[in-house]
């Protein structure tokens, strides 16, 4: 039963990939995800995996080769960040539209311009409508656990969708933490064999993929994709249940912390959740009734479950580590507010854009957020709907 090891987020992810032992990996270097494929290349060179590694000449070709490989019939993985993910944009839709369960680690990083190599969620959030299942990780442990589970979630019956797992660039990817790693054999047994339904490599049963699909069928195919996404939620819960039996670690669409009896709530994704949890614990000692919700799954968005978890709050702060220019707040805020809209009574909900380009989010910053919530609870009024936190105005 596994062992405790100290490693960076990237090395943890590379080790998850080693244990998954995919049939093909196609990847291209980009900071801060480079280290993942670099470490994985060592595993290939040392014969620790059987993977065919395709060191392509761009991220566009990385995703193109992944798509070709996945259609051919087998397990396929890659990793990227920021501009790399942006260059894949066209291909992300082609992967999901062709129902190819590729698993991709996204080491979340700010998008250019101006160029910045540090962690924020603008890359993955930019791909939120690409038809991929999307998850975020608070630390190396979660990145490791999420990536292993991603394989089975994407391959689930009726789902057959690609999955991207996010982890904050540098903050997590380059920080060393303790984590519990499963045994190689445990991961192998957990994942089992992938049996593709319609592999292109079966020349005896020729199949045309990627045809021209016009007004007479396109809508139905998109509808099927929506239906596949609807099957993801039960798939995530089933895989999480099996994974918990194996690892003792439980996962759902989100994790709550001291939220049930709270009056105020904070929603965060990724590494900020750790800081938020710490602040919540400190304020609870002072009798301030605040709780936290860490969102793990962003696509499909768990609207009904969030209504259940958040509906009782008086006020709620949604933390967004990316901008949605010209929109009514950050992407998480828009989704959360929309989810809460149908409740007869709902918390007053405000938005904080924070941490862009890797800017630190400190304890005092979150304490300020809670102070703002307290003021809303006292006055019944929202002073600022959207606040850019820690920005020189």
């Amino acid at each position, binding site marked *: 039963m596994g062992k405790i090891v100290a490693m960076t987020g990237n090395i943890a992810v590379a080790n998850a990939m080693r244990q998954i032992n995919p049939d*093909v990996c196609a990847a291209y270097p980009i900071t801060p995800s480079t280290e993942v494929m670099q470490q994985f290349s060592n595993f290939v060179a040392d014969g620790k995996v059987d993977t065919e590694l395709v060191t392509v*000449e761009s991220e566009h070709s990385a995703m193109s080769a992944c798509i070709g490989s996945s259609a051919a019939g087998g397990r396929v993985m890659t990793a990227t960040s920021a501009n790399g993910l942006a260059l894949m944009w066209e291909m992300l839709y082609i992967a999901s539209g062709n129902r190819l369960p590729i698993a991709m680690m996204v080491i979340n990083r700010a998008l250019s311009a101006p160029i910045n190599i540090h962690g924020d969620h603008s890359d993955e959030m930019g791909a939120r409508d690409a038809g991929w299942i999307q998850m975020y990780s608070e630390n190396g442990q979660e990145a490791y656990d999420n990536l292993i589970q991603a394989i089975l979630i994407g391959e689930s019956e009726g789902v057959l969708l690609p999955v991207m797992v996010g982890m904050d660039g540098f903050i997590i990817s380059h920080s060393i933490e303790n984590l519990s790693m499963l045994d190689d054999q445990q991961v192998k047994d957990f994942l089992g064999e992938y049996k593709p339904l319609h592999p292109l490599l079966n020349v005896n049963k*020729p199949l045309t993929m990627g045809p021209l699909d016009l007004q007479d069928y396109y809508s139905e195919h998109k509808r099927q994709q929506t239906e596949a996404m609807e099957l993801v939620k039960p798939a995530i819960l089933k895989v999480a249940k099996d994974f918990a039996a194996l690892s003792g670690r439980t996962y759902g669409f989100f994790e709550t912390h001291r939220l049930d009896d709270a009056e105020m709530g904070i929603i965060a994704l990724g590494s900020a959740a750790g800081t938020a949890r710490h602040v919540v614990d400190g304020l609870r000692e002072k009798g301030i009734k605040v709780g936290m919700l860490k969102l793990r799954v962003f696509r499909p968005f768990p609207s009904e479950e969030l209504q259940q978890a958040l509906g009782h709050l008086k006020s709620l702060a949604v933390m967004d580590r990316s901008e949605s220019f010209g929109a009514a707040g950050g992407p998480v805020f828009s989704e959360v507010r929309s989810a809460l809209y149908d409740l007869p009574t709902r918390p007053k909900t405000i938005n904080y854009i924070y941490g862009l380009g890797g800017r630190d989010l400190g304890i005092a910053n979150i304490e300020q957020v809670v102070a703002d919530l307290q003021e809303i609870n006292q006055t019944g009024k929202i002073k600022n709907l959207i606040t850019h936190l820690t920005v020189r105005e």
Partner: protein
Amino acid sequence: MATLKELSKKDELLAGGHRLCAGCGASIVVRQILLAAGKNTIATCSTGCLEVATSIYPFTSWRIPFFHSAFENSAATSCGIEAMYQSLKRRGKLPVNEKINFIAFGGDGGTYDIGLQSLSGGLERGHDFLYVCYDNGAYMNTGIQRSSSTPLGAATTTTPAGKVIPGKQQYRKDLTDVVEAHHIPYLAQASPHNWKDLNRKVEKALSIKGPKFLNVIAPCHRGWRTGINEAIKLAKVAVDTCFWPLYEVENGKLTINYKPKDKKPITEWIKMQGRFKHLFKPENEHIIQRLQEGIDCKWENLLKREEFEKTC
């Protein structure tokens, strides 16, 4: 090497009834290539005429596995399929002795231009695949826009023969040369009018392990402004004028496969095509001269090189 009679008995792997134009050069090229390749072949195709007209859901003309992914990535897609084939074979999940050919098709737009990087990457990495460019010299699918393969002087919808600018101002890119710089084991130029040569080149390419490249001229009557029954004749005259020399390079050694006894002037080819009509105005004759010079230069270089390599 199959005879015509033998070829005619083979299974048609590109079914008729597709929606390419009557008289389209590309469909003739692909049909001939698939006859040579046989059914153990997996094709990819860049977005373009060939793809949109042969795979309109719920129909397909492809009697072999076929995958269209996007415009610029036929090579990377084929390489991905090939990588999975190698992986599964190594892992004992596919029969070791089952040989599968991987052919990536692309038009000149998808190959010379938007797909050049993907092609270059695939060639350099040494995947065991054959890339086939069917070259009709413009973006025909979107309505005859210039590509870097469009010949000097040709009128396209983005290089029209205007009052000030008479058609395309630049020589075409020599993609076959660009591909050769990758030092792959086999590359060739071919034409559908010489089916024997094309058939042999496909068979040869597929017998060699590693990346291979075929550049095949594919006349397009819509874009070239010709009669719909002239594709094969146009291909032949392109070769006879040395606009489209038939040659192959195997392990770095050049062989010219056809040397016209009487090399025809380029006017013989361009006068058949409406896209060059404006060049015959007196004020544009210098363009014809430039076109001829470019062709002569390339042809002379090929002859000299072949001669030189005999001494190596």
